[in-house]
């Protein structure tokens, strides 16, 4: 991975706003296992995320990071154990899945904007058709979030006309339009040109400052240091180590973590 410390601005984060709740559990994963066919991808995952927590998941490729967060909004099905999101347990029940998905936003590595719709339509589609928001109101909300990600002037363009960084910011705004209580980020900057990483990270940092509960799979260690209150390291489908960022980076415990950090921080 490239050097990432330069990607994030070094302004101090006002920690007062980034309160982590002691009692309100946002996500609770207990003894969770998942297989792809015969392959045991996730093994005995236990993870409790409190409301307001900002968690960064790191680890080598194939360690199951993405699969884990995709289980949290049921893009992937788990076979054993429990996943409870905002108090709703994920089962095969479609109603519960919809309930969870309405409250959990997701940002993908490849943006996955809808190329046949304008930016504004991308943003208003789900609020209108899932939440039943009136069109005018949905558009006002959409413009509000486009301004937050600093591209209101692109509202009537198509995704194909935007740069990668702009597309990813639109993707974040699209999730925010559903006013989710939790945001999942699946390597949001991995497919971007180095010059565009910063603009996306800035949006994510400002979200964190507002107290959004976030789980980010990312290799942006500068971002982890600055924003996360917990870093989780995964390997071979298991959580190997978790700690506060300071301790995680300065004093890793597990051999695999040390090796990984020595590879990416040079």
């Amino acid at each position, binding site marked *: 991975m490239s050097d990432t410390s330069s990607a994030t601005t070094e302004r101090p984060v006002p920690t007062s706003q980034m309160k982590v709740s002691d009692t309100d559990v946002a996500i609770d994963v207990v003894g969770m296992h998942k297989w792809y066919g015969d392959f045991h991808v996730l093994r005995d995952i236990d993870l409790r995320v409190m409301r307001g927590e900002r968690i960064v998941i790191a680890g080598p490729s194939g360690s199951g990071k993405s699969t884990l967060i995709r289980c949290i909004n049921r*893009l992937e099905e788990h076979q054993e154990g429990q996943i409870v999101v905002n108090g709703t347990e994920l089962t095969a029940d479609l109603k519960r899945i919809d309930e969870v*998905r309405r409250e959990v936003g*997701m940002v993908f590595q*490849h943006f996955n904007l809808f*190329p*046949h719709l304008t930016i504004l339509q991308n943003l208003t589609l*789900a609020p209108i058709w899932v939440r039943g928001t009136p069109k005018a109101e949905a558009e006002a909300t959409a413009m509000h979030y486009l301004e937050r990600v600093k591209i209101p002037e692109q509202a009537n363009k198509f995704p*194909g006309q935007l740069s990668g960084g702009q597309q990813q910011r639109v993707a974040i705004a699209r999730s925010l339009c559903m006013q989710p209580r939790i945001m999942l980020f699946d390597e949001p900057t991995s497919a971007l040109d180095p010059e565009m990483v910063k603009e996306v990270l800035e949006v994510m940092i400002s979200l964190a400052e507002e107290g959004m509960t976030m789980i980010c799979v990312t290799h942006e260690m500068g971002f982890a240091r600055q924003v996360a209150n917990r870093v989780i390291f995964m390997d071979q489908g298991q959580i190997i180590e978790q700690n506060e960022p300071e301790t995680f980076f300065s004093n890793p415990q597990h051999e695999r973590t040390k090796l990984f950090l020595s590879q990416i921080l040079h």
Partner: protein
Amino acid sequence: MTYSYTREEMVDAREAPVNTSGPLAWARRNLFATPSDALLTILAFIFLIWAIPPIYGFIAPDAIGGNAVAPGGTVEECRLESAGACWAYISARMSFFIYGFYPPEEYWRPNVVFALGALLLLPLLAPSVPFKRTNAVLFFVVFPIISFYLLNGGVLGMPAVPTEQWGGLMVTLIISLVGIFCSIPLGILLALGRQSSLPIIKTLCIMFIELWRAVPLITVLFMASIMLPLFMPQGVTVDKLLRALVGVTLFSSAYLAEVVRGGLQALPRGQYEAAQSLGLSYWKSMGFIILPQALKHVIPGIVNSFIALFKDTSLVSIVGIFDLLNTVQAASSDIDWSSPTQAITGYLFAGFVFWIFCFAMSRYSVFMERRLDTGHKR
């Protein structure tokens, strides 16, 4: 020797050199790029010079330098040794080619249907015309009902005209339009069903598609017109044209389903996932996200199916329905107009009419592809 270099001034874009654009440059690049290209170009020109005049002479009427007999001519002119195509015969039998055995005093009924259909279909096809929803309801719901009662008669004092008397271009258009517009929704549902995670639906759709694709259309039409009545209870008859309509529609929907499936599979999984993660239900994500993109990708394939369907309607002549080709064939034994070029003129005419419709469909599909292109290649 040093490798250090810093550009001081940026180079502005210039106009292209003269010999890279214009007709001469085009000819040099495409026709005479190499000696063998030049040779092939010259050979092709010689072939055209040899082939075009006789064809032109056969088709064009004498007024513009050909040997054909223009509409309004007599059968005697057509019987001359030197005569080309006998267009007089086509114009004399035109109403038969258009309406078949429909009673001439009732021609106004199909005419109203034609006019109404054109009036409703054209604005539906033009993207810039407003009121699409009203227009669609009128065309897909109201128009078929009105057309049926107008053509079939038996109401409001209009004499009944049984479908056995329908024929010509009218029947060709009815079969192909009904086939096209009924097979679209059916084909989409079959394609979605084939991708379904519900095993029963999936199996049924696969069986349906594979069965209909594996049987020739002629067999389907024979089965519908000869075997089906054997299985029906005594006294129950289903109209022959209706049976052909159902056969053509089901046959075409199986093909369309496979075309649409190609489009569904070409979409990146991320589109499905993004729709899901926003909480859209299955039907909403299909309707708003997946199908609009998938169908756009397979417009050429869909139109290909429709063109094939349009031409395949001529197979209904085998079960005794008088479509355009069958009327042309029947008229070619008309003694009043018998001449050496009578049959070939008829087939030229039929071929030309089929070509007009198929070419129009093809051009429209190109237009729609361009219009729907939002410049996103992923």
